C-alpha cells in the first residue's frame, strides 16, 4: 500500500442518507423509501398529539413509522450543507446516540457505493472480523 488515512464523514448527500435510514433498524422494523419524506423546503415536524412542533426539517420520518407514542423524526439542513437529526427527548430512548452512529456509518457506506456507481468503478461490500463494513474499490482496472 502506498498511503492510508482516516476520513471524518459529513452527512451532505440526501440519497445516501435515505439509503442509510433504510438499512438501520427502527422501532417499527426497517423503513422503506416511501416512508421517508424529502422536501425542497423544510416542513414542520408533528408531535404525538398531532400538533405541529416549532422544529422543521427537509427529511422527515412521520411518527406512525417511528413507533409507539412517537413524534416525527427530522433531518434539518444546516448552513454548511450538512444534515443534523432532530429527535424528541421521548424518542431518544430508542433513537439514541448509538442509533445515530449506525445511521452515520451506513451513510458513509452508501455514499461510497453511490460515488463508485456514478464513476463506474467496481466495488464489493463485505464485513471484517470485527463486523465493520468494508468496501473494496478497484480503480483503473
Amino acid at each position, binding site marked *: *500500500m*502506498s*498511503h*492510508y488515512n482516516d*476520513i471524518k464523514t459529513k452527512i451532505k448527500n440526501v440519497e445516501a442518507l435515505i439509503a442509510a435510514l433504510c438499512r438501520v433498524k427502527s422501532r417499527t422494523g426497517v423503513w422503506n423509501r416511501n416512508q421517508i419524506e424529502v422536501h425542497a423546503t423544510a416542513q414542520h415536524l408533528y408531535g404525538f398529539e398531532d400538533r405541529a412542533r416549532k422544529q422543521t426539517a427537509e427529511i422527515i420520518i412521520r411518527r406512525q413509522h417511528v413507533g409507539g407514542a412517537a413524534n416525527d423524526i427530522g433531518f434539518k439542513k444546516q448552513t454548511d450543507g450538512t444534515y443534523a437529526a432532530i429527535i424528541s427527548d421521548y424518542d431518544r430512548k430508542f433513537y439514541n446516540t448509538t442509533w445515530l452512529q449506525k445511521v452515520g456509518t451506513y451513510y458513509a457506506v452508501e455514499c461510497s457505493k453511490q460515488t463508485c456507481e456514478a464513476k463506474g468503478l467496481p466495488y464489493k461490500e463485505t464485513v471484517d472480523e470485527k463486523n465493520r463494513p468494508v468496501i473494496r474499490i*478497484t*480503480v483503473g482496472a
Partner: protein
Amino acid sequence: MDIVLTFEWDGETVHKNVVKGEGKDCIASTKFIEDALGDPGERHLKAEYYHEERNQEQRRINL
C-alpha cells in the same frame, strides 16, 4: 490499484487504505472518495510511495 474502506461504528470514521498503488498518482486518483465523504485526516505514506519517488529521481539522474 484498490481502495479499501473500513467503516467504524462511531458514525464518522472511515479508514482508507490504498493497496497496489505507487507514487503521487495514487493520492490524486483516490481523492474522489475523500471529497464525497468529508474531511480527510493526515496521510501516512508507505514504502511503495517512496519506491516510485526514488525511481523517478533515478530516471532524472540518468538523463
